[in-house]
């Protein structure tokens, strides 16, 4: 799957992603793929050597990948976090908020629709790993 959107300046990692259960033994692997049932916390001891984490969405209605992404970013993961699979226009903004910074949709998305959807909401109510100031912070900033 082609990466259609990427919000990073560094060079993409070249390594192929391996599965979570084999990652621990592949001491030179720098890319891993998380499936919905995988526990993202298994990867936490290895964050310093990871350059790419792909989170697979076999069906966009399965929201486990959002928590996986948050958990990695909350633990300080700085590498690329890519949503792959059944990634659609109307999920992009929430995925960005959970720390995804690249997207490889199974079927390419309409560029204009996707950009509009990601830019639509001027503010957020809930703080997440994306660091955007929630509305409550803006309300009380000057106080």
């Amino acid at each position, binding site marked *: 799957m082609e990466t259609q959107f990427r919000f990073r300046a560094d060079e993409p990692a070249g390594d192929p992603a391996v599965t979570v259960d084999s990652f621990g033994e592949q001491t030179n692997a720098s890319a891993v793929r998380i499936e919905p049932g995988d526990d993202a916390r298994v990867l936490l001891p290895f964050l310093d050597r990871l350059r790419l984490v792909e989170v697979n969405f076999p069906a966009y209605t399965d929201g486990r990948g959002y928590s996986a992404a948050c958990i990695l970013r909350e633990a300080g993961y700085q590498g690329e976090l890519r949503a792959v699979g059944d990634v659609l226009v109307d999920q992009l903004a*929430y995925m960005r908020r959970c720390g995804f910074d690249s997207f490889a949709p199974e079927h390419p998305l309409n560029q204009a629709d996707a950009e509009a959807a990601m830019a639509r909401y001027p503010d957020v*109510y809930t703080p997440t790993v994306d660091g955007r100031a929630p509305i*409550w912070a803006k309300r009380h900033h000057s106080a």
Partner: protein
Amino acid sequence: MYVYDEYDQQMVDARVADFRDQVRRRLDGSLAEDQFRPLRLMNGLYLQLHAYMLRVAVPYGTLSSAQMRMLGDIADKYDRGYGHFTTRQNIQYNWIKLEEAPDILADLASVGMHAIQTSGNCIRNTTSDQYAGAIADEIVDPRPYAELIRQWSTFHPEFSYLPRKFKMAVIASDTDRAAMRLHDIGIQLVRNAAGELGAAFYVGGGMGRTPMIAPCINAFVPIDQMITYSEACLRVYNRHGRRDNKYKARIKILVHELGKEEYTRQVEAEFAHLLTLNLEPPAAELERIKAQFADPAFVPGLPDTLDLSDPAFALWVKNNTHTHKQAGYVVVTISLKPTGGIPGDASADQIRLMADLAADYSFDELRVTHAQNIVLPHVRKDQLHALWQKLAAAGLGAANLDQIGDIIACPGLDYCSLANARSIPVAQKISERFAAKEEEIGELKLKISGCINACGHHHAGHIGILGVDRKGVENYQLLLGGCEGADTSLAQITGPGFDENGIVDAVERATDVYLANREGGERFLDTYRRLGMAPFKEAIYRKEPA
């Protein structure tokens, strides 16, 4: 009550634009129906048997007159002149055109309303006690805390594709008027021995096909950690809730299968982690919200007596009013259950009239109750008779709150594509059969669902009725002994089901057993709990002599 500021307003305005764009893409074919479905559901738009249904959120059931008036206008402009108030304190319209849905959302946004997350596998509208802020038995007004939850849960990016829908309720009184323990998360605000405010978390309750009463997993979460604790409860559920079978996907199944102790252990571990991330809104935000729920300007020293010489008025006062915390005032419940009516329905004219009456008699405020009625929370006793006359003249004077005619019913097979049987005609027949006996029977909560999803709360009815499909014929099962209050219990099935007329007869036999056996001031539920199922079952299934 809470009024949107510029931030809240721009969020609902953005949602209107968002949904308008989604509808455009659906209509031009670039969004397939199976891709559109969860999106429209998260905007409260269901495809029913005959048309789209739009469910509008009424956060914690509180409305202003202007908002209520708009709900009436929408009923006229986009529906067939009716609105249907629901068991989750919302309102839904049953005859909506997809093309017009964005315009309805725009009309709603103009009065600070929306349909955000009123359906779909996300955190739904948070409900609360319909008497909040008006009665003496609450430790605080629960609505500011529900508003904190509203903001936190609105467009929550991590929890918008949960295994299944997620319902929260917040109360602050030992008298549970919100069926709190039948929610995915029920929160009761409490004080500890030091007098500090906290939140008791009850997690994993629900109705549906596997009814469960939520266990308490933490009896005291400090109030300035309530949002963070909620986040922990949700994250464990989002990660580990079952997704292999939609009928086992609610959090109640996860809590049940893991066991309360193991689920709690996982939540506490996640909570410890999340506390390091500063997710909690600051105290200043809670104070900002609380200021908007300050008491209205009650007039002190008003007469605290009522002239009850008119017997019809006296009956309505006895049944449909509740003691107010302020002397000289009462809490009024307008029953939307006239004899033979459709439970929870109101015409556009009635909705607008209730809006006007709220402006004239109740400091501009109304509430929707989970029993599908409307509350005017702050009415002066010296104006009560005048109010009652206006209600009665508009067909809104039914004096049957919490009686057998005050039925909770789902839309059933008349509207709903999930239903197996009709609910509304059964409710209408029961209402008509018992109209003359309501007062004699007294408190009796009767609840009807048209399928096992239990939207009509039949598990929690003193008498519950479940409509099923048996070999292509509608069949109604009778349940007894449910209760959604502080002493929550689940109703038990009596035995074989009945046809539409038979179920009405069976209800009458059950109430006859009660009337013949009640002691002192016992309600139906008390007599049932004392006697058990046997005498009721015996009477219900007794063969008539030939």
